[in-house]
């Protein structure tokens, strides 16, 4: 389970305790200046927790959790070979080169993403780090034979926050299809529905938390806003161009499905919503989405 909760971390020993250190978790405090401050103390904390000799210095290109032809016809093997075998690999290799010998070496990928985001003033490794994270997450967001519809409490949360499952799917597709340029569409969990930067709710409650659909440009992902990503769709052209080409591509069949929703104990989030708890929900969610039927308007 630990490995699954930290899908990108080759630095497994430190990824769980440290992955989200710069954040104060999902109890609000979105956009707080405190959130992104990366102190030497935090750094030392991570390194110490990892213990000597346990840190893998380099990130590895992890294979998708299914064969490269497993998502056909929605995503061809050819696309996958380039997308994973070339694009994803290049991000990993370039990231490793960029962090070698720097203070970033040995940190978890999530930490590097949040730290190098640097309040929107990206440090050089940001694009590669975030793209490694995004692609690892994207492969997990799809599954052969996925699709369908969630049930249980997760469906209730979707209904609560989007009106209906169908509305959610429609909104998700619209978000994906209307990204102006390269980027990503996300289903994410947001701790504070007010969306007020720097606001801290002294009495956080379930009502503060909300599922949201967000778009992000280029390499940016919701971790940098302190949202918890659940599902994603890559809308860079390289994700679909070999298969579908046309710019007016309609992301039709992004059908997030949660057939094991009885496992998704959303209720466990009600009292104390921790990132680890939400990661469990995320795991289930991610395993039951399928990225299908991108097709051209023509």
């Amino acid at each position: 389970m630990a490995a699954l909760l930290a899908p990108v971390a080759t630095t497994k020993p430190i990824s769980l305790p440290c992955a989200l250190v710069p954040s104060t978790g999902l109890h609000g405090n979105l956009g707080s200046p405190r959130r992104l401050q990366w102190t030497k103390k935090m750094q030392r904390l991570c390194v110490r927790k990892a213990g000597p000799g346990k840190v893998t210095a380099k990130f590895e290109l992890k294979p998708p959790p299914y064969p490269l032809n497993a998502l056909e016809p929605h995503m061809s093997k050819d696309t996958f070979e380039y997308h994973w075998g070339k694009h994803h690999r290049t991000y990993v290799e370039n990231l490793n080169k960029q962090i070698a010998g720097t203070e970033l070496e040995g940190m978890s990928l999530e930490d590097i993403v949040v730290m190098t985001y640097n309040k929107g003033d990206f440090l050089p490794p940001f694009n590669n780090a975030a793209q490694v994270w995004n692609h690892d997450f994207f492969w997990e967001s799809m599954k052969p034979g996925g699709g369908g519809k969630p049930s249980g409490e997760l469906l209730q949360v979707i209904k609560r926050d989007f009106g209906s499952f169908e509305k959610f799917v429609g909104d998700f597709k619209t978000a994906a299809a209307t990204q102006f340029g390269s980027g990503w569409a996300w289903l994410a969990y947001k701790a504070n529905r007010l969306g007020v930067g720097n606001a801290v709710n002294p009495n956080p409650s379930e009502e503060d938390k909300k599922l949201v659909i967000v778009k992000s440009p280029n390499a940016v992902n919701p971790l940098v806003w302190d949202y918890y990503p659940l599902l994603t769709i890559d809308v860079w052209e390289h994700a679909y161009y070999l298969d579908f080409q046309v710019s007016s591509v309609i992301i039709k069949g992004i059908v997030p499905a949660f057939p094991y929703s009885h496992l998704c104990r959303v209720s466990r989030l009600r009292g104390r919503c921790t990132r680890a708890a939400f990661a469990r929900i995320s795991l289930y969610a991610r395993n039951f989405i399928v990225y299908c039927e991108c097709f051209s308007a023509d």
Partner: protein
Amino acid sequence: MALGRLSRKALLGLGGNGGRLGIGLGLVRGFETVTLPDLPYDYGALEPAISAEIMLLHHQKHHQAYVSNYNKALEQLQDAISKGDVSSVVKLQSAIKFNGGGHINHSVFWKNLAPVQEGGGEPPKRSLGWAIDTQFGSLESIVVKMNTEGAALQGSGWVWLALDKEGTKLSIETTANQDPLVTKGATLVPLLGIDVWEHAYYLQYKNVKPDYLKNIWKVVNWKYASEVFEKESP
């Protein structure tokens, strides 16, 4: 003012049926729509630097989509303005910028390219050649700089050789997504734009963007860039 004049024309029945008028312009409900310009060469004419398949999709699908969506946004804008719906007017700005920018950029891009037998790849002469040599040292220096900027550009966008028409100064600029060069400065004029969206090269070059950037210079139409330079230089 222009709108008023066009509206009167529309009332006279010149464009009230939504038909096209003039080159690249149409009159619909009192505002000018844009149309997809023809390519000044065949789709296959830039091979092997850029494949016919890419050119066809790029022109007929991508550029056409920018044209259609820009016109659609204009129509929605017109409606919003007539209803005094300020919120919608503001909301439409992003679609107008993106699709209008896409139309502007691609219209320049097609003219920036030419088949080899029609002078594609021939270095600039006359005043632009001189300006490049004095300001950058050599043409090669511009090629290297633009290729470096293009390869480093994260996501979708454009790399430009720009002329600041107030001072005849040349510069290399990048813009994100479909932002036109004018968003980088009101007096900047595009002499040469290189599309580094993945759709510009992916079917042929896949993930190897540097090869696309290397080969496109074989079909760059410096003659067009020179003409713009001479026209826009004070």
